[in-house]
Structures are given as structure tokens and as C-alpha cells.
């Protein structure tokens, strides 16, 4: 385990109670509404927020232990933090901002700048190395901030909405970068796709508590709170596109409205699918026969989880469940309009 945390902290009237573990090299996504305590949790791991009770072990090092009175300051923890505010040092050039962490770990200025250039290159900003932070756009500053944290090559990389202000294209690149980083990562995010693609583990926080945790698939299949359902209510399938045809990894082929090529992520809302008992004759480009894996009643609707060939969630009215005679193990037809699909580069 790279992270073992049991945290009880109170700052400014806000109280945080959280416990979780994360294996070495894993990625933990932290989601939750505004004010849920996500940043406080990450700051407690970083040592910026003192904990009143509990124990935090990072990469085998006890960094907090209230019982023994241990509180290791941030600079002596095996971490690096990237905050959504970036907080680039305005008096240092972009390359010196990124070289700052390596220099703090004892690297010579020359070697640290060399490493900084490598990381700037990885976030696609090597050409801006000589600028001052004040000359960067918001998205550029965010990538520099991310490179600055990653260049520390910490055991645990803490990312507070590191992709928030990036445009779609750079977002994909940076997501790949984050997926490749070896460090154990803790990532605060609001993006369901990021969560699904990057996270091995998902922590849902509300009002200072972890209300649900598990793999993103587990949480999405059984969201315990309306907020979680709202965030994760998106179907995500992976495949390879040739023009407007996407051969899904699960075997099914979908028709989309956007021509693409190469590996893609296909997302659509659970409301986009219509179910019927027999093969439908509609304008929908995509129809397939599916097996119902499970039916979960919610307050004013039912969530039908389809199994093979393409696992996804569908919302239907409780009446429809009865009329179609749906139940676990039964079969039905699914119809999905091409225009309901969002396709993006994987």
C-alpha cells in the first residue's frame, strides 16, 4: 500500500472524516459536490492541513500519527501537489518553476533544468520555457503547474483538478500523461470520463465524509446518492473508429455521427437508449439484442443494467419494466440514435 489514511480534521468550522487505502502505482479519483472536503482531504495528505486524529502513511513513511504526536511538514513528505490555482512562482521563468522541485531534492541547477525541459516537452510547452508565468494563458499555466509537480517524481502525486481548464484536445494528451505516470496518484475531478479512464478507485465525498468507494464501474452501477448518480450517469464504451463506424472492444459495432479514426471513447446518457420487446423499426442507427443483467428501482424511474454484448445503463419508467416483462436474465432490444453519441479520442 502506498497510501493508508485515516483522517479526522477540522479546519475553520469544517470537519473531515475519511479513511482509505491506495495500492502503489494506483490512481484514486476523488469526486463530490463543491464544499465536500475534497481539497481538504488532499491538503491533509500533503501536510498543509493538520489532522486532529488519525494516521497517514505514505510510501511506508508515517507522516501523521495523532497518537504519537507525529506531523511531518509537507517538504519532508514523499509527495508533490498540483493545485487548481497553479500558484506558479511569478518571479521565476517557466523552466525554473518546473526545475524548482528537482532542485529542492538536491539536484544541480543544470540537471534540474534538463529534467524541467523534459517535462515541459511532455506537456507540449517546451517552447515556452523562457516565459514568465504572467505571460501564459490559463490552460498553459495549468500544464506548467502539472509539469512542475510531476517533475518532482514523487511517490505520491496529488492533483487538485489538474485538468479543469484545459481544452478538449490538450485534455486528452494530459490524461494520457497522467495515465503513464508511475506515482501513486490522487486526483480530484469533476469529469466522469476522466474518472472512468484514469481511476482504479473512486472515492465519493459529501459533507466531509467518504460516502461511497469502489472501482468506477462498481460505483456507477450502484450510485448511493443522487449526486453520484448525476455525476456518473454516463455510459462509456471503448473501441476503434473508422469513419462513422466504431468497432467496440466488446464486439458490437456502432454508427456515430462524427467521423473519427483510431482508438476512441464513446459516451452517451442512460436516457438515450430505448428498449423494446421485439426488433424495433426506427430511425435509430444502432439496434442490438441485449441481456438484462439487473434492474434497480429508483424513486421515479428504474435503472436497467444491460449485460452482453455492450454493458450499459438505461433509464426507463417503472411501467415500461412491467409492460416489457423485464427482469434479470430476460432479453430485449436496445435502440440508440447515432446523434446521441459523443465520440472523443481515447
Amino acid at each position, binding site marked *: 500500500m502506498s497510501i493508508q489514511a485515516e483522517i479526522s480534521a477540522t479546519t475553520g468550522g469544517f470537519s473531515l472524516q475519511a479513511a482509505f487505502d491506495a495500492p502503489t502505482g494506483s490512481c484514486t479519483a476523488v469526486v463530490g459536490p463543491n464544499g465536500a472536503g475534497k481539497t481538504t482531504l488532499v491538503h491533509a495528505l500533503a501536510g498543509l492541513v493538520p489532522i486532529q486524529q488519525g494516521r497517514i502513511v505514505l510510501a511506508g513513511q508515517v507522516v501523521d500519527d495523532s497518537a504519537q504526536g507525529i506531523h511531518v511538514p509537507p517538504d519532508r513528505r514523499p509527495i*508533490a501537489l498540483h*493545485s487548481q*490555482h497553479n500558484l506558479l*512562482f511569478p518571479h521565476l521563468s517557466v523552466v525554473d518553476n518546473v526545475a524548482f522541485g528537482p532542485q*529542492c531534492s538536491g539536484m544541480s541547477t543544470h540537471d534540474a533544468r534538463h529534467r524541467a525541459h523534459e517535462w515541459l516537452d511532455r506537456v507540449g510547452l517546451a517552447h515556452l520555457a523562457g516565459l514568465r508565468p504572467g505571460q501564459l494563458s490559463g490552460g498553459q499555466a495549468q500544464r506548467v503547474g502539472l509539469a*512542475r509537480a510531476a517533475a*518532482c517524481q514523487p511517490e505520491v502525486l496529488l492533483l487538485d*483538478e489538474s485538468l*479543469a481548464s484545459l481544452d478538449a484536445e490538450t485534455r486528452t494528451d494530459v490524461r494520457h500523461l497522467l495515465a503513464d505516470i508511475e506515482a501513486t496518484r490522487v486526483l480530484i475531478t*469533476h469529469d466522469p470520463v476522466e474518472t472512468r479512464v484514469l481511476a482504479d478507485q473512486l472515492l465519493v465525498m459529501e459533507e466531509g465524509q467518504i460516502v461511497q468507494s469502489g472501482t468506477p464501474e462498481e460505483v456507477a452501477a450502484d450510485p448511493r446518492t443522487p449526486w453520484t448518480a448525476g455525476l456518473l450517469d454516463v455510459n462509456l464504451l471503448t473501441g476503434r473508429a473508422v469513419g462513422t463506424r466504431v468497432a467496440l472492444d466488446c464486439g458490437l459495432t456502432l454508427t456515430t455521427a462524427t467521423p473519427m479514426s483510431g482508438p476512441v471513447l464513446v459516451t452517451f446518457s442512460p436516457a438515450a437508449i430505448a428498449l423494446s420487446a421485439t426488433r424495433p423499426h426506427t430511425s435509430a442507427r444502432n439496434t442490438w439484442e441485449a441481456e438484462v443483467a439487473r434492474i434497480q428501482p429508483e424513486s421515479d424511474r428504474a435503472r436497467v443494467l444491460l449485460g452482453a454484448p455492450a454493458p450499459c445503463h438505461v433509464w426507463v419508467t417503472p411501467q415500461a419494466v412491467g409492460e416489457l416483462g423485464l427482469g434479470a436474465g430476460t432479453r430485449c432490444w436496445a435502440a440508440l440514435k447515432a446523434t446521441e453519441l459523443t465520440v472523443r479520442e481515447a
Partner: protein
Amino acid sequence: MTDRSTSKEPNRRPPIPVLAMAVIAVAVLALPLVGLLQRTPWSSLGTTLGETATLEALRVSVVVSLLAAAVSVMLGLPLAWVLARLSFRGRALVRAIVLLPMVLPPVVGGIALFFALGRRGLIGRVLHNGLGVDTLIGTTAGAVIAAVFVSMPFFVITAEAGLRQLDPRLESAASTLGAGRWTVLRRITLPLLAPSLAAGATLSWARALGEFGATITFAGNHPGRTRTLPLAIAQANEAGRPEAAIAMSVLLIGVSLVVLIGLRHRWIAPRSPRPERSSETSPS
């Protein structure tokens, strides 16, 4: 569009009354200097300034003002940090005490220093009996103390303002990248504060250079030890040697102007230590 462009360049012609008042303000400040320069015996200026007594006063002034500025920075920076970063009971009182010398007549400061640090004073007795210091009165050290008393507040308020402008999250960010306290201070805090520190040090040095009342009251007027240029100027004027007084005044004005003009950018418009744009997006 038109609205925006006109609001950026307001009326082409500035209002006449404002200009008139501004001209009068400059005149009030500059005319006495013009009067002085007009009476300056330029031909004999070199000779007067070359006199041993003048050079001695200049030396004392330079030594005392620089030492006072150095002491103000060394003691004033920690004080500014405490005032800017810690909240404690009585902070308003401490700040008032720190600023008091700026509004007190310097002669009051001199008298206060005399009764505190004189041989029979509260602290003077301790210094005399405990540390074997004979007396500060009449010594260059005494003149430095008098100058520090009047000039340190200028450094403290400038440095405190600079510290308040500095985003403490930058220091936290540095620590999460592995920087210890000393590295944070050396590579983040001090460089970001540099414009404020330079401005504060210049202001307090300038105040120390012009110091008269507290010095003459506390440290006395001893050639070569406490007689700074201002004291020498007053002495010459009273002794019926106005040419010498004028010559030394011109020297003092010249030195001050050179320094103030040299540091004008930092002094009048310190570069903002926080030019970073706040990132535009979503709260957590």
C-alpha cells in the same frame, strides 16, 4: 465600443483647476529649493565642501544613515512579518507604537531616548552596570540609535504592506514541492518581497539621512562622532556662516535626489509581487 475607447482616454484636455492646483503644489515644494540654489555661491562651492569639517560631517552622515538603515532592515523585517502574518491580542497597539515616531516631533524622541538610555535611565543603568557601556550619549552609536528610532517605522510599514500583498499559498506550494523553510524564504519569499524591501530600506535611509531633532537632543552635537550634515548645517547657519550652510544643503539635496531618482520605479510604483492571473475555472 465607443464607450470603452472614450472611457480609456478620458477628456483630452485635463480640467484647468486641477492642473493649476498641481502646479501650485509643485511650486510649494520646489520654490524653497530654487531660492536656495539661487543663493548658492557656486564659485566657492568646491572650497567650502572641501573643508575638513564638512567632509567629517558627510562621513558621519553616511556612516550613521547606512548603519541605521541596516539596523532598521534587520530588526524591522521580523517585526513586519509578525505584524503581517500573526494575529494576536494587542496587534493594533503594537502597530500604533511602531508608527508613533513618524508623527512625534523628533525632539520628543530624543528626550525619550535620553531618559531611557542615559546613564541614569531605565535601560542606560542596565547597560552601564551590567555590560560596562559607559554611555551612548555623544557617541556615533547613540546617533545611530536616534536615527533608527525615527527611520525604522518607514521600513516596517513598507515591508508589512509587501508581505500582506504576497500570497502565502505560493509559500505553501513551494513546501509541497519539497522546499524547506529556509529554501522557501531564500527562493520565494525574499525575491517576491525584494521591491518592497528596497523601497522600505530607501525610505528609512532617506529619513535617517535627514534626521536632526532626535540626534541633537539625545546624542549631542560632537564633531566627528554625532555631528551629521543636518547638524553641521544648523551649526554653520547659527554661527553666521550661511555660505557653508547653503553649500552643505546643496550637497544633501544632491545626494538625496540621486538616490530617489535612481530608485524611482521601485519606490513610486513597486512591481506587483503577484502578477499571476487567477486560474479561471471551477471551484472544488
